[in-house]
């Protein structure tokens, strides 16, 4: 019998792979699948709310959709898709040949998949319908006897473990495997984003893991963590949940800040303005983000001095965030702006994230939040941050990195069509929801009565959501089409700055034959300069670092 061929191909090679690029791609495929599911759930909800007293969807189903949509988008899309981009690009951007723990990396991915499967299996019996926050006692066995809640608990355990292991992997990789000469101040800003994202995951996720474990024992073994009759307290759930839940928001945005900080300089043909300020503000946001959780609990009975503390700490986050926005604008300032699709999404990101940030500051003022809490204003706010922010940033990253991952360019025209559909659809869907919230529409209601001024705005929002969905489909179509028919990209189609553009597209299994020595935060610029000076091909500039690596 002859030995196995040393490089497996076909679908089995995907199941058993420990290559960070394949794992990264699988993360991106799987999470976009969940993104589609979550999107369909959202559209069904919008259909139900398109008119008052609609009976399209029964309350049980509607509330299951609310729960599944929130859970899917947060735990199965935004957090893991960022892990997917991180998996693909962290080793490439720091000049490593793989992650620090390749097998652990595969485990993280499969834990995520199984978490998603366990959760979605619940649609075949009784899906959870408590809202993605699962507040006790509503989620306790007395009020939610169905096993859907347990499916959610296992989802949190599995995806939580997946994320923590993935985060440990990222930190170890970034600390330990950077190319020669890549000091802390020369790391790409996306790497800073992933590094801080990972630290936040390690610090915040155990809190929710503990909370759902307590919920599990309360539900099945009669313990009394959250049960008032036994001396427990439902507020404990809220503290533990939001101690995770708020850092989670920054977990979902910091790597996206990193992507934007990569994209804007490339398309402004200018070094990023204030590299150190952006990196430091990322860390500052993460630190402050750990201290603001109770601003989700402003309507609970809490002493004013505590409220004031959490209001101040929430305010404080506006400062490093503002610094970032000004740094991006300053990067564009005087730049020779090149408006390619990634830049469209990046500029859209800045404008929409700014709105989300500002509405966040407004709801951090607790007297105002006393009115806004649990209304559609908050729904609008979170979507401006998570969709207008994170998802637009992820799409920017997709258009930016697609040539590297597939070796082909995406279609520009389709990309621009997709952007404008998404931009108009998004703002149409969610801007009016600010008004709905101010007019007193609570969130998570499956129907409403006519006569409170909510009808027109809900209809606008529903129409907008379908425009938004059309825009997303155009990008998906574009991606599928471009894999086969796109223009060949070459190593470096954007004239970009970072190391992933040094290697062929798609990169070979070992990533780099030679790893260049890093001399600045923009190694590709150095290399292009040297190539131009010497008139030699790019590969010959780099010095082999060590034989056999």
């Amino acid at each position, binding site marked *: 019998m002859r030995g196995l061929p040393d490089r497996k191909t076909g679908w089995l090679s995907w199941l058993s792979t420990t290559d960070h690029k394949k794992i990264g791609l699988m993360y991106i495929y799987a999470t976009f699948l969940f993104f589609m599911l979550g999107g369909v759930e959202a559209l069904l909800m919008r259909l139900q709310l398109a008119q008052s007293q609609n009976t399209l969807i029964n309350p049980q189903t509607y509330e299951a959709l609310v729960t599944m949509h929130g859970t899917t988008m947060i735990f199965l899309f935004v957090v893991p898709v960022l892990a997917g981009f991180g998996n693909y690009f962290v080793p490439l951007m720091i000049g490593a040949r793989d992650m620090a723990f390749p097998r652990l990396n595969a485990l993280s991915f499969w834990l995520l998949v199984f978490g998603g499967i366990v959760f979605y299996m619940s649609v075949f019996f009784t899906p959870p319908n408590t809202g993605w926050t699962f507040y006790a006692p509503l989620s306790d066995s007395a009020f939610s006897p169905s096993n859907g809640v347990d499916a959610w608990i296992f989802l949190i355990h599995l995806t939580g473990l997946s994320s923590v292991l993935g985060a440990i992997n990222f930190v170890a990789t970034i600390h330990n495997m950077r190319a020669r000469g890549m000091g802390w101040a020369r790391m790409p800003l996306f790497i800073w984003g992933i590094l801080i994202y990972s630290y936040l995951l390690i610090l915040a996720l155990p809190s929710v893991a503990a909370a759902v474990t307590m919920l599990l024992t309360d539900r099945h073994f009669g313990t009394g963590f959250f049960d008032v009759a036994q001396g427990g307290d439902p*507020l404990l759930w809220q503290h533990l949940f939001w101690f995770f839940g708020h850092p989670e928001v920054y977990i979902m945005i910091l790597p996206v800040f990193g992507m934007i900080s990569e994209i804007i300089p490339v398309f402004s043909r200018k070094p990023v303005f204030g590299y150190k300020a952006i990196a430091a503000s990322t860390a500052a946001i993460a630190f402050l983000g750990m201290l603001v959780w109770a601003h989700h609990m402003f309507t609970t009975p809490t002493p004013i001095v505590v409220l004031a503390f959490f209001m101040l700490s929430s305010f404080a986050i506006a*400062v490093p965030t503002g*610094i970032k926005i000004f740094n991006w604008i*300053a990067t564009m300032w005087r730049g*020779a702006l*090149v408006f390619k699709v990634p830049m469209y999404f990046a500029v859209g990101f800045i404008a929409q994230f700014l709105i989300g940030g500002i509405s966040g500051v*407004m709801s951090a003022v607790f007297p105002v939040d006393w009115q806004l809490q649990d209304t559609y204003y908050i729904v609008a706010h979170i979507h401006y941050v998570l969709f207008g922010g994170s998802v637009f940033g992820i799409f920017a990253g997709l258009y930016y990195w697609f040539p590297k991952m597939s070796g082909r360019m995406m279609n520009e025209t389709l990309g621009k069509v997709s952007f404008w559909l998404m931009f108009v659809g998004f703002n149409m869907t969610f801007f009016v929801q600010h008004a709905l919230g101010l007019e007193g529409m*609570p969130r*998570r209601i499956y129907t409403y009565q006519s006569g409170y001024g909510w009808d027109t705005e809900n209809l606008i929002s529903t129409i907008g959501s379908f425009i938004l969905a059309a825009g997303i489909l155009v990008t998906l179509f574009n991606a599928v089409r471009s894999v086969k028919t796109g223009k060949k990209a070459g190593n470096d189609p954007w*004239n970009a700055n970072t190391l992933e553009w040094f290697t062929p597209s798609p990169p070979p299994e070992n990533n780099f034959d030679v790893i260049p020595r890093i001399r600045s935060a923009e190694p590709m610029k150095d290399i292009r300069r040297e190539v131009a000076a010497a008139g030699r091909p790019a590969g010959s500039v780099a010095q082999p670092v060590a034989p056999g690596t």
Partner: protein
Amino acid sequence: MDTRGRDLRGKRAAPAGSLVRRLLLLAGLGCALLLIAGCGQSQGGQSTLHPASDQSRKILHLFWGMLAAAVVVFIGAVVLLAISYRRRNREGIPLVEAENEKAVSSGLVVAFGIVIPVACLIVLFFIANIGVVKATDAPAPGQTKMNVTVIGHQWFWEVRYPGSAAVTANEIHIPVKTPVNVTLKTADVIHSFWVPELNKKVDMIPGHPNTLELYADHVGMYRGQCAEFCGLQHAHMSMAVYADPPAKFRAWLANMAKPVAPPASPQAKAGEQVFLTQQCASCHTIRGTSARGTIGPDLTHLQTRNTLAALTIPNRKGYLGAWVIDPQHFKPGNKMPGLNLSGAQFSNLLTFLEGLK
């Protein structure tokens, strides 16, 4: 470098639609929409934009002030983006000499990124804390003449008037221009008591009784709704606060405190028997009869209420009958089962219920 304004292949960069200008336009449209939202006048609505008390008004003023500042910040940023777009082919920051450009530009970032936000936020902090919090605070015990206890249930509001036997549901009557201290509790999961036009919302959490002041400037109905997701029929857990002239309120309360009068007609008497012998009495209380259930709302003076099932349907004969036959039709998942009644039992029961004045 002379490649400014050229794209990656050396062609002149496409105009790219004026991306920034379009952004600005959309933002403007959005703000206009928000303003329109603020203008529609409604009576008996639940909009935070139509405050009917000092508390809600102070919060709204704070909100408008912040919104004005927010619009300035947002437009400022978009204008900066627009300038950077317009000036993409020109050297130098407008208004700044080339030599000290770096110093000025980092100065700008410090000013816009740190100093101005911090100053704004500190001012906001003090206004919010000193101005608004005091106004919205619940009064100290014994400071107000009136006390009301509201208990949240899945999915209705039980309303009690301490010092009186009166118990009702979903429709809270208070005297106008009188501060009323409301004690808030829950019988099951977390609810949130919210009458936007009168005051802030306050969560009702098991084990954590809470308080709130209700005060209405003028006579009228103010709608409220549960704001914390509380299960299947969260959407149909509304309430109405009626601010009445003091005399009318006193009369109402006196009537509510009385047990119900014995049924007058034989049909009503038979209906009472239906109520007591079928499942009704195991969930509902009617003071003056032996019905003492506590799962559903108190029905003693049912006919003083304008709506049924926490403002889900109007309290009229047709609706009441339809509700009794099939409660799950209007409010699927609520705890009331449909009853298997004969035609006579049903009409007697309705006659009895319609006599609960």
